[in-house]
Structure formats: structure tokens, C-alpha cells
């Protein structure tokens, strides 16, 4: 059976916010694209994020996904294959020839109407440019076993808390009503022992926003924020942080361990030059970002470089990959926020359009 070949100016690997933003930006520039998403739905990790607004918007950007999806769906020049993954790639003239393979997915079904759908069969794609927007991978906190993840009841990851924020926290806290909640920052970040010599940038804001939601829903909930340095950025944070310092307990210490106590998980940390133990109902581990799980395979597939932190791309340039015609968008390039990923997607698209320009001209002449 002949393998179908799809021809497109640009193929975007990854249908998260960065990939979608790149597709929209390309189409604004008059360039069609094919978005290839491994999972069953668009949106990547952001699709699981809820709104953290309390009395006002906290600028997390998660709500932006809806308009990206809406705009992608409205543009016929953007084609989408979900449940698809590149398994082979070779440079082909100025462009790339990719082989896509269908992926079996058991995850949640797509909840947005889309142009396109699951990749039906193994297919070939001929593209002038490739944008890798595969996102970062969250650090698995069980690799830092001293924090008791999956071992001590009531210890959860920040992403698990995110998933439960709209529902019941009691389930996370093993049935207890969580009135005492601790956040431990930098789990997997700023950690040379793991080779993670970078700050994941978004976790402080993420944790503090969730802490605020918890306090807004259950006034009087005690929040303890174990941190080394608060990494929020943006002008609005300065004032908000001052407010939060009044309402929450900021402890500047990296805890030593989390153990199971009679009334909930206990955090062992240093204060006043000695070890202290504090008991909580819920301990949230703010896991950092790791390079995408497939970074090694992708960098091999597309002959692209990795940053010194192991993400895709190069330290020297924002979206270049070291391979002609291959560009990196979003947190596959390094830790970044949702809003930053959207912007980064546009920048990658600009670079890809620059690469495509001579090709487009040639095609017009031919």
C-alpha cells in the first residue's frame, strides 16, 4: 500500500499552547501548517489547568488556551492530527521528510471540535520547516524520595493539587479536611545533585496562586511556603507577594524530609540552627520542569542541539535548533510560563517563516 504523503510548509510537533500559537502565527503570515499532537486532544498540559482567579485574575494565562483552540479550529489552513508521533525524519533539500505513526491513547477524549482528528495510518509528511513544541516534562517527585511522595499519605505533587483544586482536596489529604497545607518549592529544580542547574521559573507563581485559591475557598487554612528564593516575576507580583506574606507563613528553608506523622505528613526542616518538625494535612511538592522525555530521541531524529540544561535548542539563540529548518517553541526550549510559551510560539513561527520565505518564493515562480 502506498504511503500517503502530506505536503505542508510547516509541521508542528506538539499541540500545546506553544505549538498552537506557532500555527496561528504561521497562518497569519499566509503559511499553512500541520499540527501533530501525540495525545488525543489539543492543549498539552495547560488543558488540565484550572482558573486560579480569586478576587481578580492572577495572570496565569491558562484561559488563553480556549482562544488558541478556537482560532486554530477557525483556520482551514491549519491541519491537525492528534494521536500521532514522528518516528522518522530526514533532511530533504531545504525541508524535512517525516514519518508519522498513529499512537494509541487511553487518555481523555478530545473536548473541542477540531479540524482534523486522529492520524488514521502511518503517513509521510513533506515539510519546509519543523517546529518542535513538545513541552517540558514535570519532574517526578519520587526521584527525591526523602519528600515521601507516593510513600507518605498526604504528600502530593503540585500538578496533582492542580487536578484536585476544582474538586475536593480532602481526597488528596487522605480524607482529612486540609486546614494545614505546606508547599515545598524547588523539588527537582536548582539541584546540582540531579544535574538540574536551573530554576524552573514558574513553580513559585504556580504554588502561590494555588495557595491563594485554597485560602479563598477555605478562609483560615494555614499555608506554609517552604522556599529558598521566591521567583515570581512581573510588576504585579511585588504587591501581591507583600499581601501573601501577611496571610501565609513563608519559611526560607529547604526541608530535609517528609515523614508520616500521626495526624498527617510531617515536614522536617531547619529553623534557628536546628531541626524542627511541623505537621500538616497536606504537603505539596512543587515539582520543577525537566527536558521533554523524548528530548534525546527528538534531538537525534532532527539532528538538533540541546541546551546546557538538556532542553531542545541552543543556549545562544531563542528558537534555533542547530538544524536547518528546525525550530523550537515553548517549554521544550526551557522552563517558561504559559503566556511566555504563547509568545515563544510566535517567535518560532517568525523564524520558521523566515526559513520558508525563499521556498515560498520559488514555489510562486514555478
Amino acid at each position, binding site marked *: 500500500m502506498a504511503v500517503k504523503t502530506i505536503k505542508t510548509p510547516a509541521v508542528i510537533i506538539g499541540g500545546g499552547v506553544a505549538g498552537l500559537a506557532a500555527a496561528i*502565527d504561521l497562518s*497569519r*503570515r499566509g503559511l499553512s501548517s500541520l499540527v501533530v499532537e501525540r495525545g488525543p486532544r489539543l492543549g498539552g498540559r495547560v488543558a488540565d*489547568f*484550572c*482558573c486560579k*482567579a480569586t*478576587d*481578580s*485574575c492572577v*495572570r*496565569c494565562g*491558562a*484561559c*488563553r*488556551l*480556549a*482562544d488558541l483552540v*478556537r482560532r486554530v479550529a477557525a483556520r482551514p489552513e491549519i491541519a491537525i492530527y492528534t494521536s500521532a508521533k514522528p518516528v522518522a525524519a530526514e533532511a530533504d533539500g531545504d525541508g524535512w521528510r517525516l514519518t508519522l505513526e498513529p499512537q494509541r491513547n487511553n487518555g481523555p477524549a478530545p*473536548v*473541542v*471540535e477540531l479540524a482534523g482528528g486522529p492520524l488514521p495510518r502511518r503517513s509521510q509528511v513533506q515539510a519546509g520547516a519543523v517546529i518542535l513544541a513538545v513541552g517540558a516534562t514535570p519532574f517526578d517527585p519520587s526521584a527525591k524520595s526523602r519528600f515521601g511522595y507516593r510513600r507518605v499519605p498526604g504528600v502530593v505533587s503540585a500538578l496533582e493539587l492542580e487536578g484536585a483544586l*476544582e474538586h475536593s482536596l480532602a481526597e488528596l489529604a487522605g480524607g482529612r479536611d486540609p486546614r494545614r497545607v505546606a508547599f515545598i518549592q524547588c523539588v527537582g529544580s*536548582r539541584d*546540582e545533585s540531579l544535574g538540574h*542547574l*536551573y*530554576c524552573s*521559573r514558574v513553580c513559585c507563581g504556580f504554588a502561590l496562586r494555588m495557595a491563594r485559591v485554597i485560602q479563598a475557598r477555605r478562609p483560615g487554612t494555614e499555608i506554609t511556603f517552604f522556599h*529558598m*528564593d521566591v*521567583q515570581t*516575576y*512581573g*510588576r*504585579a*507580583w*511585588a*504587591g501581591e*507577594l*507583600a499581601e501573601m506574606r501577611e496571610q501565609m507563613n513563608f519559611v*526560607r528553608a529547604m526541608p530535609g524530609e517528609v515523614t508520616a506523622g500521626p495526624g498527617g505528613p510531617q515536614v522536617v526542616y531547619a529553623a*534557628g*540552627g536546628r531541626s524542627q518538625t511541623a505537621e500538616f494535612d497536606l504537603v505539596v511538592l512543587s515539582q520543577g520542569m525537566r527536558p521533554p522525555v523524548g528530548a534525546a530521541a527528538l534531538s537525534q531524529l532532527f539532528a538538533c542541539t540541546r541546551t*546546557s540544561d538538556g532542553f531542545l535548542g541552543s*543556549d545562544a*539563540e*531563542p528558537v534555533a535548533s542547530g538544524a536547518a529548518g528546525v525550530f523550537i517553541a515553548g517549554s521544550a526550549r526551557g522552563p517558561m510560563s504559559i*503566556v511566555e510559551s*504563547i*509568545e*515563544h510560539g*510566535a*517567535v518560532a*513561527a*517568525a*523564524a520558521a*517563516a*523566515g526559513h520558508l*520565505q525563499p521556498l515560498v518564493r520559488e514555489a510562486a515562480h514555478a
Partner: protein
Amino acid sequence: MPEVSLIWIEEAGLEGLDPAKAAKKAGVALSDGGLVEAAVVTTTEARAPRSLVNRLKGYPVKWLDLAAEVGGGPLALRQARAAAAVARAAGSAALGTMAQRYTRQPNQEVLVAGRGLAAVAAAHQAAALGHPVLLALETTRARAACADEKPAEVKRALAGLPAQVEVVTGTELVELLGAGGDFQARLQGPRRTSRRRFGAVVLAPPSAYAVPGDMPATAEDITLPVSRLKPKQYQGGEQWLQAAVIAPLGPGATAHGFARAVTAALALQKRPRVQVTLFLGEAKVASEGGERLYRDARRQGVLAMRVEPGGLRVSRDGRKLSFDDPVLGEPVDLRPDLVVLSEEVTGRAPAWLDNPLVTTAWDQDLPDHPRLQAGRTARSGLYLIGGARGAAPGDPRRAQAAAAAADLHGLLSGEAVAVPAVRDVLCASCLTCVRVCPHGVVCYAEDHIAPAPAACLACGVCTAECPAEAIAPPGWSNREMIASLAAGLKAAAGDKLVLFACRNSGMDAARALSLAGHQWPKGLLMVPVNCAGRVGVQLILRALSLGAGGVLVAGCHQGNCRSLNGNLRAKLRSGEAADLLAQVGGRPEQVRFMHLASNQPRALAQAVAELAQTAGEK
């Protein structure tokens, strides 16, 4: 379809004809010339009264030499010819000129004003997208960089600019009127002032490094800002040279400012017998490579010392720094031989940008607005990038420039919806629309209200706030909305409810619910709006009078509104409607407002269910 008016000007050749009959037959309304959604005028532009020509300027008008069309012959024949000509002209006014009328062709030219890498990059990107660009550099030397950039880099970037970028130097943007698609700029050149029109404007004002105001005041002779530090000049002798590098300490400290301080500390520490103590509030390592740099500095021997805000004190002579070491819990003194103060990138938006009379384009909280990224300001088509936006030198500025260029390209290539139509006959020139337009689109020029051609987001705030029903984006007039409300409510079964939902939040949430198979109350009518700010008191009350038992307005969260404060206006107007309802003996809880985000479908479902219950209670 726009409403087309027939403006009948009596002149030779039309004697005896009945304007009303002609209008009726052609299916248009006869007008005295005030109603200008679209018009057919029975005479040529040259023959028409000047006042009428002026009034109709910029609107879809079919000038018709009716006398010529009608010709001679029996009155009945002339009357029939007149009706047919008017009908034809009306069709072309309504359809043929509609595109021009409702979405006037935006000017494609782009002005980039400012200096430095961000400016050059924005010009380059906009040109790459096919726009003619005027790059107005405010300095006389083209390659002059911002104070935090290298001139050589700017020179390189300038050399790479494509041909469709016209570069002028020594030229400053001193006044800007209009909005996206049609800006009128006044440019002050070295010799003369010129006016030009542009479709979009990118501002990249100069940026520089400045020492934050909360730095301790050490003696002048031992104190330097990072930008003036030459590490090679320092080394210790028998005694160690003690240097204090002070990173930004306050809550506004940025990762870039921190990285700069650490870079200076590292360079100094590498000098022989120099000991650097680096004071910091929070180690802001969130910049790329920031953590590595910080580690390298410590490994080199830099002593990193966290101090609480205000915790770094200076002796009266400015030569002794005192602080409490949080680790030892002891007071520590340092008599530095050198104090290096870190700096943050600063850049100011031009003062005129902050002028509320021009527009609410800018205030300092906007850079964080989740819907005003890519350099956008509140004023559509106007972009502010670079240091004034907090972007650090180098790639962040290029990235911002690229994002802004992509955004303006989208705007000018017609992604935005059409401009609002103004019914001059109703307009009292109260300027409410000019004042409330969140995007600076509605301008007042040449004695009439003149919306810009590309920048309108059809948020409808002007329509909701206009006391005279004189302005509306096409499709969003009260008349049209009420008509669709009436039709929708008529078709609705059971307890009738109306949900006015912003497309950026409520509608997305509703759509997610619908796709997930959510069972809405049978009588629910969803009315999408581009912004909750479109929903004024009148619409709410009309919905109730048309039979709705409850009205819910779902707008974005505070600080998330694409139209800045359309959501807050909607909240205010919902409250007013509820109050009015109470005054006439109704139940105020029939009118509700909620803040919502696109990813909060559950909250919407709950609010609608509660509204249904309220409506059902009667």
C-alpha cells in the same frame, strides 16, 4: 445588512417624482441625510451640498446621477426608472460598498519609533511580513543603541534591514492620533515636522540601566554602578580588597538585574586577593543560565549574603555596611573598599502615551495583562516593546519585536472585525464613545466621530454606553441584538433565561460544557458577545421584558478583560438593572453578573442552574 437610506436632493430633472414612492419601491428608508449607515444620494458628489458631502465622508454612499438615469418621458415611466435606479444603487450601497464602509481598508504602513535593537528588530520583522516600514530613530546616529546595548550589534542589525524599511534619524514621534489601521502621526525631524498616516505603530523607547532607588547610600568615592565597573582595575595587596556588590534588594528585583550583579561579582572575585560579598534580597535565578551563573560565582568564592528589605544599613560616613547574617543570627559589619550597585533595566513609555485624553493606552500594570502580550497596549495597533516593557537586552527584545510584528500583521490583514457605524443623526457628539472605547478606536476627528478601520474588536462598550444609540459595530446594534433576543426567546421553551456570555470566557466555558454533553435548562438562550461590556442596562431590561425570567452576564475576571474594563462596566450595569428591577417591584436576583474564565465551565453550569431556580420560583 446595513440599513440603507435614500437621501433625496431636489434638482433639475427630478421634477414631479415622488421620493417616498421611490424609496418604498426600492426597499429603502427615506432620510433627510442624517441617517448614515449606508446611503443612496440622488445627486453626484460634485453637485451635492458641501455640508452633506462632509457629513457623509468616510461612509458607504452611492452617489447617483438620478436625473440622468430617469431621463425624460411619461411620469409613470420616469417614476419606475427612478425606483429601479434607487434599488440598484441601494444594493450596491449595501453590498458593494459595505466592505469599504464597514471595514475600511487599513493602512498597511508601519511606523517603528525609538532606538536600539528592539526597534530595528521590529522594523525587520514587520517588513518581512510585507509591510512598508518607516523606522524613525530618535538619535542622529543610526546605530545609536540603548544604553544597555552594544552599538556594534545595532549596526549589524541595521545593515541587515530589507529594502522596504525606510530609515530616518533624528526623528521623534511627538503626537499620535487615531488607532490601528489609521494612525495619524506627527514626526519631529531635525529640520521639519511632518504628518504621516500608518496602520500600526511600534514604540521602542530608549532603555537604560538605572540603580534602583532603594539602594544603600554608601560614600561616593567608593561607590559605582555595575555599568561603570571595570573589574580589571581592582586587586588586593597585602590586605584583601573588600568589595560589596549589591543586587537589587526590593520586591521589584528582576532576574536580569540579579544576573547582572552576579556577573559583576564573579568578575571582581576573579581578581587577585579580592573578596566580594554579594548582597541580595532573593536570589532571582529565573533567567536563563541564572542558576549556573550564581553557582559559578559562589564557587569562585563570592560570599552570597541575603538581607531582609531594609536590612542593609550604612554608617553615617557611608563607609560601613551593617547587616544581620541570617545564618549566624549575628550582626556583621563590612568596611568595603568598593561598593558596586546593581542596576535594573528601565525605560519609560513616552509621556503622551499616558495621557487619558488621548487614550487609556498605557499604565504600568498593563505589561502583566494576560491578553496584552506581544507588546500590545490597550490601544489596538499601538505596540510598546523593549526596555520600557521590562525586556532585558538581547534576545528577549528581539523576541518581543517578532511577537509584536506578528500581532500587528494579523491586525492589519483583517483579523479584527469591522469598525463601528455611527448614526450621525442620533449622535450628540457627547464623546462618551471616545471616552469609553478601551482600544482607542473611536476617535473624534474633523467634527465627527470616526472609528479607525482595523483596530475595533467589536467589544460593543461604545454601544452599551452611548446614551443615544448612535454607535454600534456592525451586527451589534441594540436593534439587531433585540431582534435576535426576541426571536430566540420566542423559540425558547419553559422558563426563559438569557445568558450573555463573553466570547473570551463565558462562551468558551459554555462550549466546553455543551461538548461534554451538559444538559442546559430548556429555556436558556445563549447570547455571545465579544465583551460583556456590550451588555448595558437596556439589553438586560429588554431581555426581561421579552419574557426572560432571569439574565446572567458572564464576563472575564478582573484584570483579564481583553477590553480592559468591559467586564467591570457589565458588572456595574447589571447592578443598575437589578436596582431598577427592584424599584418597579421585580426581583433583583433575576439579574446576575459573574466573573468567569474559559476554563471554569463548572462555575458557569452552577450559576446557570441557580439562575434557573430563581426564575422558576417566580
